[in-house]
Each structure stands twice: as structure tokens, then as C-alpha cells.
């Protein structure tokens, strides 16, 4: 059976496509719970017909895309899926007038606060990660113990819990803390813990000979780290760190639970008075996506910059 399947790639492709089409037809038939009612037609027949038509459309589309060059394919897929997403949102019967009325405030207050919290937390988390990584590579047991306890605890607790614990718990021991500082502190500590591991792996990825070469030249441990090891480790560190930045941007929405007026909080509250929740949630989602795309772009630029010094 296996041999029969693998012996002929054309046949295998046909079988694969046929199976894919059948699955798609079956799923579309079963999932469609609200087919249009047409007198004298069996509803199941109608569902099946719609599924067949859709499947034929998708198949034709895939075939047409196959004729394009690669770059055009990528663009076409993005445009099609984006239009599909828009059509999906359209189906909610959104009030664009309401969105237009609120979007200014979502951006000036919500996006501004989200960016402020994220940027500040990213900066602090990076500083923590640098110190944490060096501590985790330390031969001193006390320092290693501190660093490993920290990463274990803050990677082990849900971020939401950390926000609550810091905001509600610190006042218990006498430190009253505002909602924004509490949010920034929780995000910094949590992401600092993840990034500590990323930085540590990056530093460990540099061969020992580099440190020895620097030491033999008389450079101090701190100079070796900053001038020799870190610039090389950056290449290893930047891609996963960029992912952390993007994740942090979205996780900053969790601080809405302590009442910080950032994007998520506004998205949840602005729609309440007029029962326009979906409008606000979709708008905020699109804004988060746009911001992430911006970060992805920045990440690509930085990677290109740090890659340049290593021309082969």
C-alpha cells in the first residue's frame, strides 16, 4: 500500500487533492447551519450544493494562484485572506459611525498608554535579562541561586496572577503602588525572566576562545562581555527577543484588569454604553495587529544590521 502510494508522485498528488476536496466539502456541508430556505428543495441538498460550489471556487483559486510568480503569490494570498477577514467582520453588521466616533480616543489614550507601558517594560526587561543572564552564568552559588529562583518563579506564575499579586499584594506590606507602575513591574519581571534565558543561551553560544582571546589581551570581564561577547551574541539574541517584544505588546492588555486605561481596557469599556462591544473589540484587535506588524518590520531591519558585520 505504502509502496503503491509513494511510487508515483503524480498519482499521490491527485489522491491528496481529491481527499482534500472531499474533506472540505464534508466540513462545509456540516458546518453551514443556516442555509437559505428555498421552497421545494431538500435543505441537505442545498447545503451540499453550496459546499460543492465553494470547494470548486477554492480549487479554481488555488489553480489560478499557481500560475503567478512567487512574490505575486504571496501578495495575492495576503490580499485574499485580508478581504476574507474583512468580509467576516462585515457580517457582524458593524456601526462604522460608532467606530469613527471612538477611534480617536482609542488611539490618543489607549494606544499611547499601551505603547508607553510596553516600551517601558521592554527597556526594564532587557536590563533585567542582561543582569540575569550574567548571573546565571556565574560560578558564585549565591548569585546563581538568586537568578535561577527568579527565572523559575516569574516564568512559572501566570502573568495575570503576577499583576494581581503585585497590585494587591504590595500594599499589604506597606508599599502602595499605582496601577500603571504595578503593570509595568509585572510585565518587566515576567518578560525579564523569559529574556534572561534567551540572553543566557546567546552568550553561551559564543565560543570560549572569544573570552580567552579578550582576557589574554588584558580586557576585564565586563569589557570582554560588552565589547566582544554581547555584540556577537546579539545575532543569536535578536530574533527570539523580537518575538518577546511582540508578545509583550499584546500581553500588556492584561494590565487592563487593574483599571489602566490602555487599549484593551478602552476596547472593553467604550462599547458598553451603546452595546457596541464587537465594534470596539475588532477595532482594538486591528490596532494590535498593526502595531505588531510595525515591530516585525523593525525586527527585520535590526537583524539585517547585525548580520552585516559577519559577511563571509
Amino acid at each position, binding site marked *: 500500500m505504502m509502496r503503491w502510494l509513494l511510487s508515483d508522485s503524480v498519482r499521490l498528488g491527485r489522491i491528496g487533492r481529491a481527499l482534500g476536496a472531499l474533506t472540505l466539502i464534508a466540513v462545509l456541508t456540516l458546518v453551514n447551519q443556516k442555509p437559505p430556505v428555498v421552497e421545494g428543495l431538500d435543505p441537505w441538498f442545498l447545503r451540499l450544493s453550496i459546499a460543492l460550489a465553494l470547494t470548486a471556487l477554492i480549487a479554481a483559486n488555488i489553480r489560478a494562484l499557481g500560475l503567478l510568480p512567487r512574490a505575486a503569490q504571496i501578495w495575492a494570498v495576503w490580499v485574499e485572506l485580508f478581504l476574507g477577514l474583512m468580509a467576516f467582520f462585515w457580517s457582524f453588521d458593524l456601526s462604522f459611525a460608532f467606530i469613527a466616533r471612538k477611534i480617536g480616543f482609542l488611539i490618543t489614550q489607549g494606544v499611547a498608554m499601551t505603547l508607553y507601558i510596553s516600551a517601558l517594560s521592554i527597556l526594564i526587561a532587557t536590563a533585567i535579562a542582561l543582569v540575569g543572564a550574567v548571573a546565571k552564568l556565574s560560578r558564585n552559588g549565591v548569585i546563581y541561586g538568586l537568578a535561577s529562583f527568579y527565572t523559575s518563579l516569574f516564568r512559572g506564575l501566570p502573568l495575570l496572577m503576577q499583576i494581581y499579586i503585585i497590585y494587591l499584594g504590595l500594599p499589604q506590606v506597606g508599599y502602595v503602588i499605582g496601577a500603571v507602575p504595578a503593570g509595568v513591574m509585572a510585565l518587566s519581571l515576567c518578560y525579564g525572566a523569559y529574556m534572561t534565558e534567551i540572553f543566557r543561551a546567546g552568550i553561551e553560544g559564543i565560543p570560549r576562545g572569544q573570552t580567552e582571546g579578550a*582576557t589574554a589581551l588584558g580586557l576585564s570581564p565586563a569589557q570582554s562581555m560588552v565589547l566582544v561577547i554581547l555584540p556577537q551574541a546579539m545575532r543569536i539574541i535578536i530574533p527570539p527577543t523580537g518575538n518577546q517584544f511582540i508578545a509583550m505588546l499584546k500581553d500588556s492588555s492584561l494590565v487592563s484588569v487593574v483599571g489602566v486605561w490602555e487599549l484593551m481596557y478602552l476596547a472593553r469599556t467604550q462599547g458598553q454604553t451603546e452595546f457596541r462591544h464587537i465594534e470596539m473589540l475588532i477595532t482594538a484587535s486591528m490596532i494590535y495587529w498593526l502595531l505588531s506588524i510595525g515591530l516585525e518590520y523593525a525586527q527585520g531591519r535590526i537583524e539585517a544590521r547585525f548580520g552585516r558585520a*559577519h559577511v563571509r
Partner: protein
Amino acid sequence: MSADPLVTLTDVRKSFGAFVALSDITLTVARGERVVICGPSGSGKSTLIRCINGLEPYQEGRITVGGRLLGLEDDLVRREVGMVFQSFNLFPHLTILGNCMLAPEWVQGKSRAEAEATARRYLDRVGILDQAGKYPAQLSGGQQQRVAIARALCMAPRLMLFDEPTSALDPEMVKEVLDVMTDLAREGMTMICVTHEMGFAQAVADRVVFMDRGRIVEEAPPAAFFSAPQSPRAQEFLAQLLH
């Protein structure tokens, strides 16, 4: 031995955990002297040379360079001792010039202009000035090792340590590196070289130190050592080397 010792090792013992890598090492190197260290693999040659600039700590005995005690004044010693590694250990993210300027700028506190002038002078001396703007990965192995030598010389060291500087090179590149080292010796640099290049040892060395299992087994001028080794271990080793 000599009236003017630069390096002294006295009853040095070094172990990695339970494994004894060096024992009873006593050795003096005079200013301007060239010493070649050889011996079978695992005999402790690298460990010995790495103890002399504090890359490895030692447990017993004393090592001094220019009167400074290793284990106590490692920073000061390293500023005056250059080291060349088998695997070059150039910094891949810096240009050739950047590699040579780093320590003069950051350790000696020279200005950029001064550091660059020094770097260019030594790169010229090892015949590689025209590659100054390139990155290490763009150079051949022999060129990289010559850069590594220039980088060490930029610190104006009193002593140069070499740990098998030609072992990682293709045969046709060995000579260009040995030529640079020979020139350096002619100019009176104090050198301790771990190498199995017998031609180099015979032409340049004042003394050959033969090591086996963490001990110095034999010390002799190169002519005597290569023609009539005293210990059976050295005889065996040389027979294999010639083979």
C-alpha cells in the same frame, strides 16, 4: 640560571579536580630568551602556557612574570604578555583594524588615532596592512594568524606566548606564520612557544623543554635535544615525530 629572569615557575602544581595536569614544574626564562615547549598530546603544554598569563589558575607553587605574581596580579601581567592561540580567536564582528585597536584603546587608554597608528604599524610588519578593512572570516588561516600576532604586538608585550600557532593551518600557510615569528625572535622578543615545528625550534630556540604527563622531563639546547635526547620518552617522541 640567568641573571635577568623574566618568567619564573617554582614547584608549580595544577590539577583539574582529581586529575593532576602539572606537577613539580620549575622553569626560568630570561629576558630575550626563546623557549620551545614540546611533548606528546595531553602532556600539559597548553595548560603550562595558559598558567603563565593566568588563563588557568594553579594550586601550588609560584609563577611570576616581570616580578609580578600570577594569581594576584593577573590583570597587570596580561597587559605585558601577548598570547597567540592555535585557533586564532580573532573577534569576527570587528574588522582586522578593529581587532588590533580594541585592547590599546580600552586597556591602555590610547586615543583612537594613536591606537589606529599602532595597529597599522604592526599590521604592516606582519605584511597584512592591505587587508585592514576586512573581517577575519574573509582572510585565509595564515593571514588570520598573522593578524592575531599583530593584535598581540599592539600591546607592546614583554613576552609572547604561542600555543601551537601553526597546527590549525594548511601546510602551505605554515611558513608565512613561522617567518613572522622568526623575525620577532631576531628582534629580541622573549618567546615561549608550544610547537612541533622542529625547523623553527632549531633555527630560533635557545632551549627546548620536553614535557610528558605534566612534568618537565628534559631541557636542552635544540641541537643537543634533537640529535641526542637523553630520556627514553623524548627519544620515543622524536622517533614518532620524524616518522
